[in-house]
């Protein structure tokens, strides 16, 4: 290392030797402050502390509520919970409801239909023939199809059909299947 780069011992107190021009300038303070500045400074600081405290308490509450790190996960959690509730309670669409109706054997309407069949108010065999489109002109000799005969016969009956049954959207396959499932009826066998 070169000698000139070495720091002389105690050079801070030997500036007259190492920096005579700097040494000749007295290190007086060339700066000033407004009159009474230091008298009023403590009060200014105290006021600012009070103002900052009030600001911080409001800002802290605001920051907590609107901190993206908090509200984004919270919002996402709420959406997930709502979605899960929606899924699990099985809120059905109209078609879902209709399907639920058709698949539910315990509905009041089906029970009523059962009772009509049991009481003989509805002829299962006629219903089945009607729905399956059986054309049996030989039966009545009038040239009327068996279907028309069956419909006429059905119209003569004193079946009271509830409004809900009238509006019931039951497919033909459903009825056929129902009848087939309940084929222990003696009337069906006899006919």
């Amino acid at each position, binding site marked *: 290392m070169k000698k000139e780069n070495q*720091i002389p011992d105690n050079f801070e107190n030997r500036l007259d030797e*190492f920096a005579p021009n700097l040494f000749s300038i007295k290190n*007086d303070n060339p*700066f*000033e*402050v407004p009159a009474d500045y230091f008298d009023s*400074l403590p009060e200014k*600081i105290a006021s*600012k502390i009070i103002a*900052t405290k009030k600001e911080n308490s409001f800002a802290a509450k605001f920051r907590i509520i609107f901190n993206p790190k908090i509200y984004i996960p919270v919002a996402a959690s709420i959406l997930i919970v709502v979605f899960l509730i929606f899924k699990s309670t099985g809120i059905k669409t109209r078609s879902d409801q209709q399907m639920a109706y058709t698949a539910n054997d315990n509905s009041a309407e089906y029970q009523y239909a059962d009772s009509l069949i049991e009481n003989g108010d509805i002829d299962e065999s006629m219903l089945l023939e009607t729905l399956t489109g059986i054309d049996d002109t030989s039966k009545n000799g009038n040239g009327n199809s068996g279907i028309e005969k069956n419909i006429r016969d059905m119209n003569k009956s004193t079946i009271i059909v509830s409004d809900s049954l009238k509006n019931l959207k039951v497919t033909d396959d459903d009825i056929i299947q129902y009848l087939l499932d309940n084929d222990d009826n003696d009337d069906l066998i006899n006919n």
Partner: protein
Amino acid sequence: MEQFSDTELLELFRKSENKNYSFNLLVRKYQKQIYWHIRRIVIDHDDANDVVQNTFIKAWNNLEGFREDAQFYTWLYRIATNESINFLKQKRSGFIISYNDVESQLCASLTDDPYFTGDEIQLKLQKAILTLPEKQRIVFNMKYFEGIKYEDMAIILDTSVGALKASYHIAVKKIEKILTD
């Protein structure tokens, strides 16, 4: 006014009913020292006024957690130095053209500053100091004008004593060269 030691003032501060009173005493004890330290860094009085207030507000907010591992005044000086450096950084970020524009601006402001009452040679010295890198400038001010010990400076600036001695030595040489020219 009765002079309390830092330990006594801090004990007083920790009793919650005396917080404001004790802090007021701390401010009165250190306000001039801290203000001039800041003023020599930021030069302008209005800027120094802002920074000194921010320094004491920061001290108030953090005084509960002050563990007295170091002396109170070195802790306060550290806050003041960091606040001054941050202030200049913010000022620097506003300049698009040149990194050194802040120092040039500070130099220019000295000439018209109503609160600068130094003579021509004092002005020359201040402008020479402003040519130093920021940290070197702070080291020079703390040693030359404030007479702070290297050991305390090491705590305030988080730099080794050896590095500080070297920094001051280089600063003195640079300034001497400018004053000689």
